[in-house]
């Protein structure tokens, strides 16, 4: 018997000494009861999201059409005095266009590249030295002001980890009421194959006398904006 099976057997015999309990019935997560129009519901979720995000020290820039996003991103980069920005591939947004707009405004752009050891090391180094990381979230959570960011080869995890400031974009259609709804929208399949991070505000600590300080390891500044998709 392998060591693993020995422990499993121990656990099993331990369990048998007292009875099992039935698995709980999960209560449905509290949804909306009053029917509202799709637009009204979306707007309501986004305003709740914005409130919650600000409460944890993030900044909500507003709701923009896909075309306006480019100009707003450039304006943000200018406002915070960014010289270089790193950007990952979008989920619903054409971030290549955003990258071009940044470059036209004179801001250097770092894009994910090949995955060889040397390329990875240099990408990491450049990320650590850049001023702003930009990604699009896969989903948002209104109840907590949370952004669900999925790491991929075209939008690596480090983008929301190494730069001192982040802009995270979220599509209004992907805003969910609560955690349970967001997790089920992302789906079990994604969780097994990708890294998912739920990000709720800038990095923070309360380790010194329980006083809150932002930006301990991750980004000190977190900006978010919502895209209002063009109607078809």
């Amino acid at each position: 018997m392998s060591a693993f099976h020995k422990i499993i057997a121990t656990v099993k015999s331990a369990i048998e000494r007292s009875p099992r309990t039935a698995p709980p019935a999960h209560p449905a997560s509290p949804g909306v009861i009053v029917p509202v129009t799709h637009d009204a519901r979306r707007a309501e979720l986004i305003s709740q999201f914005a409130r919650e995000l600000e409460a944890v020290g993030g900044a909500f820039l507003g709701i923009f059409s896909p075309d306006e996003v480019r100009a707003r991103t450039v304006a943000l980069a200018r406002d915070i005095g960014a010289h270089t920005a790193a950007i990952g591939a979008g989920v619903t947004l054409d971030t290549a266009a955003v990258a071009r707009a940044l470059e036209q405004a004179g801001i250097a752009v770092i894009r994910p590249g090949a995955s060889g050891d040397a390329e990875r090391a240099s990408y990491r180094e450049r990320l650590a030295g850049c001023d702003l990381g930009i990604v699009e979230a896969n989903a948002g959570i209104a109840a907590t002001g949370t952004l669900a960011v999925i790491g991929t080869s075209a939008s690596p995890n480090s983008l929301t980890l190494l730069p001192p400031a982040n802009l995270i974009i979220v599509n209004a259609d992907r805003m969910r009421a609560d955690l349970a709804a967001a997790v089920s929208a992302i789906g079990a399949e994604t969780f097994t194959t990708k890294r998912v991070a739920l990000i709720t505000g800038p990095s923070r600590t309360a380790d010194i006398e329980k006083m809150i300080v932002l930006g301990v390891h991750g980004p000190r500044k977190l900006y978010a904006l919502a895209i209002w998709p063009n109607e078809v």
Partner: protein
Amino acid sequence: MAAAKPDPIPDFLETSRKGVADADLRRKLENSTGRHLEHVAHMRAEFPGYDGERDVARRIKEDAIGRLDELLIELKQKLEANGCTVFVAADAAEARDYIIKIARKASARHVVKGKSMTTEEIDLNPALQAAGMEVVETDLGEYIVQLRRERPSHIITPAIHLSKEDIGQLFADQLGIAYTAEPEALTAAARERLRSIFLGADLGVTGVNFAIAETGTLVLIENEGNGRLTSTLPETFIAVMGIEKVIPKLADLSHFLEILARTGTGQKLTTYTNFISGPRREGELDGPRAMHVVILDNGRSAMLADPVMREALYCLRCGACLNVCPVYRRIGGHAYNSPYPGPIGSIVSPNLFGSAAAKLPFASTLCGACRDICPVKIDIPRILLHLRWKETQAQPPTKWPADARRTRAGVRRFARMARHPRTLRLLSRIGGWMLRPFARDRYLRRMPGPFKNWTRWGRDFPAPGARRRKPRGEG
């Protein structure tokens, strides 16, 4: 190489005496824990679903622990399918040896650690250091206590026993920065130090908050981002978890997350909830090349076999029971001589560390504040009582000082006499007569026998039977 002889574990009575004598420590604890309790009260008040979620979360744990064998098999399979290497360790030594083996194989020199009580439990850091590696704790609080060569004094807020001035002095001495007591500046200094350490690290070790069997996903919860860095940057990543961390389904998770941060830190959700299922995949630019998961028993299956103890395995390590505990708040975490202090420590430590921790279950008035705040409603007082009873049966018996032995003998004698109320009433009347002449306005200043410690420690003793007449309405 001969392993260094571990220091004998100091006695709880001694260390707790040091704790209460430190007025400064008590003030710091009162401030910090008080602030936490205010946040929690606020969170609970504005989230009407709180109590319902607690019940659901508890039932999920009951179910999971009740079929832990199946879930562990499923978890191991799924993690392996996701590309992880899984090792199940029966005890601390096995876990340490495995981790050191992996570290050596990866030729690791610089180890970064995310906050993990489980690695404290198995004393991993000294073992890695003895194997020639440099180990840096990266959670700010852990980093601070590591610089002081101390253990964490709290499972969530490791440096809760220190003031900002203490930390300012520490950083001035050890990091060579100009003295400041500004939390912002201190945090910035640590960030700078740790960032360069992160970029040069070749092995990352963290704990685990939940392991989802269905998907083979580890969930890591944190505020600082150091856990994300630790699990993302180094080429080798090792996650260490107790067997009890497994939950069945992805859909179960939200029920825990809704209550965990609310109780643990007074937030709706912590800043980062990280889902990690495996190492870097083809084409990805970050994440470890190899990922190992160490699943540790170390006495947990023995707790599982004890029907009263079992619910201790539901613990989420949120730390709230420490903050609300009137004993913890007076003596601090170091007094417990265990990585797990406070109420949860008092029930878990005797199972993990045996006779060295046998006194801890007595360090409670059974006031029940811990059970009331616990997000999964663990009946800690009931378990304490159970462990007290087990302690009285222990062979060899626990070494108590003479006064504590006298107390127990006194209680036993009293209990035997109380079976004969009439005799006891007569005896106590005689005792009362004898003591009454020494009383001054119904109180005695000094008591003999088992009550000696009462009057020796700041309290007068009510003279037996002196309070006969009921008070009158006038003030």
